[in-house]
């Protein structure tokens, strides 16, 4: 079992290809070598289709296969899979009323050395505009596998955001549901950590009186679970993508409560720097120190 999301993704897709002849994979070169190394392209030469470096075609072909009764799984770098081919996701899949699984790699800063062209902190916000799509942002390889199997069983389309970042543990107990990682006192602020920023968030709040919740499914957000767990009048969302992407859904869930909602995520997509993922995590304030600064800026008090 691979510890990295991309390895686990290929392993799990291989299992789905084996158990269900309706499953097909449509690639645009990215990850082809992983499917080769796993022996899957040799085992499923008809159902693993690589269209070349043609992302618009990748989604269009997936739509055609879905119209013929297949469940297409597509993967690629988030900027190309989501941003370049966004109209194909909208028209070729969503508008046709067919479903697919789109699993991206790269996320917000995995390709730090590649610069802006390979970074897509806006992907979740874009995908959230499409009706009929679940969005999963798994925090590690175990959660990725659960999200993928959940997506396979679902009757909706799913966008799964893979990243090289990973929490040390699987925090999600039930795909789509909010989990409590830490309980604060009555009336304490609630922090919602999404996917791979959970460990950094827990480090950041080590001596603060806060409740920490976790979800890997920002859309549809588990509103009932959130309402049941928010005990104060303040919700801080820590999200590893464009800041405020999930604020609207939190607000909808808490519509009848006087709640102050603040978001902390990527606020400056045009970094125009290279370096390492750690550099970018620090730049965006999404390492433990940056998250701590944000929370302290929100006047959260220390425990005890």
């Amino acid at each position, binding site marked *: 079992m691979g510890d990295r999301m991309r390895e686990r993704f290929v392993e799990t897709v291989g299992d789905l290809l084996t158990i269900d002849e309706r499953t097909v994979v449509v690639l645009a070169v990215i990850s082809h070598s992983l499917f080769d190394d796993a022996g899957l392209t040799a085992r499923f030469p008809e159902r693993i289709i690589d269209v070349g470096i043609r992302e618009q075609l990748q*989604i269009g*072909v997936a*739509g*055609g296969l879905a119209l013929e009764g*297949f469940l297409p799984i597509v993967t690629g770098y988030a900027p190309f899979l989501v941003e370049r081919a966004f109209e194909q996701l909208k028209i070729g899949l969503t508008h*046709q009323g067919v479903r697919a699984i789109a699993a991206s790699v790269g996320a917000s800063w995995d390709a730090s050395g590649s610069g802006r062209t390979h970074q897509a902190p806006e992907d979740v916000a874009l995908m959230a505009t499409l009706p009929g799509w679940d969005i999963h942002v798994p925090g590690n390889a175990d959660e990725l596998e659960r999200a993928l199997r959940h997506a396979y069983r679902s009757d909706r389309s799913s966008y799964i955001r893979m990243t090289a970042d990973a929490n040390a543990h699987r925090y999600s107990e039930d795909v789509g549901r909010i989990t409590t990682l830490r309980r604060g006192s009555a009336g304490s602020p609630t922090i919602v950590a999404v996917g791979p920023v959970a460990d950094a968030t827990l480090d950041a709040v080590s001596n603060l009186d806060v409740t920490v919740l976790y979800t890997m499914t920002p859309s549809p957000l588990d509103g009932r679970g959130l309402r049941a767990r928010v005990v104060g009048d303040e919700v801080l969302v820590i999200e590893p993508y464009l800041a405020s992407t999930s604020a609207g859904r939190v607000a909808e869930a808490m519509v009848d409560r006087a709640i102050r909602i603040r978001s902390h995520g990527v606020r400056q997509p045009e970094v125009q720097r290279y370096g390492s993922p750690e550099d970018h995590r620090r730049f965006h304030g999404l390492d433990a120190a940056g998250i701590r600064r944000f929370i302290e800026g929100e006047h959260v008090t220390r425990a005890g």
Partner: protein
Amino acid sequence: MVHAQSIVDTPGAGHDYSHLRTFMSRMTGDEKHSEAATSTLDVIWTLYDRVMRFDPSRPDHPGRDRFVLSKGHGPMAYYAVLAVKGFIPPNALDEFGTFESMLGHHPDRRLVPGVEVSTGSLGHGLPTAVGMALGLRIHRSPSRVFCLLGDGELDEGSVHEAIAMAGRSALGNLTAIVIDNDSALHGWPNGIGSRFSVEGWETVDVDGRDHEAIEAGLRWPHPDVPLAVIATVGRRDG
């Protein structure tokens, strides 16, 4: 088994080519696309009357041939043919473009029986048709996919992605029909067919108003490679 020319014994039948213009005249409000509609009329009619296999009483029959109006524009001819062939009731044509109508200025597969793919935004139909053809091949299905594009639509880069992939994939179950009414702003030096043949397609040029020629083109042998039928209808012909 489904058959071509099922007009003979299908609901809503009893009309023929002579009724198409009358049917089209019942659809008003999208005159900006009237040229697009009439430019496709003879090709769509010939497809449904002589070539394609379908059963209007079972629009989702697995053995049917698939038709994709890639450009989506001017679907009045398409709707008229669907009415003549019994997919939709002729009185539906009178509601064309209204809020309550199934018939919009671009076709919607979830509203119109017989429409395979919802189109209208240029450049989506052929990529989807390639996916359908690949899917049918995996299923070992004898069904075929016919995809109609405009020569202006060929400007879209996504169309060229699909042309290249279909040629490399040896999709013998795919036919693209390009209605050439000289709409592409910058034209196609060396002819439209060359854009396909360079990627390994079989190509044939026909008079887009001549039903015998259109039928011959659509039946042109193309074993193991896709076929492009270039149907010329004259400059901005409507």
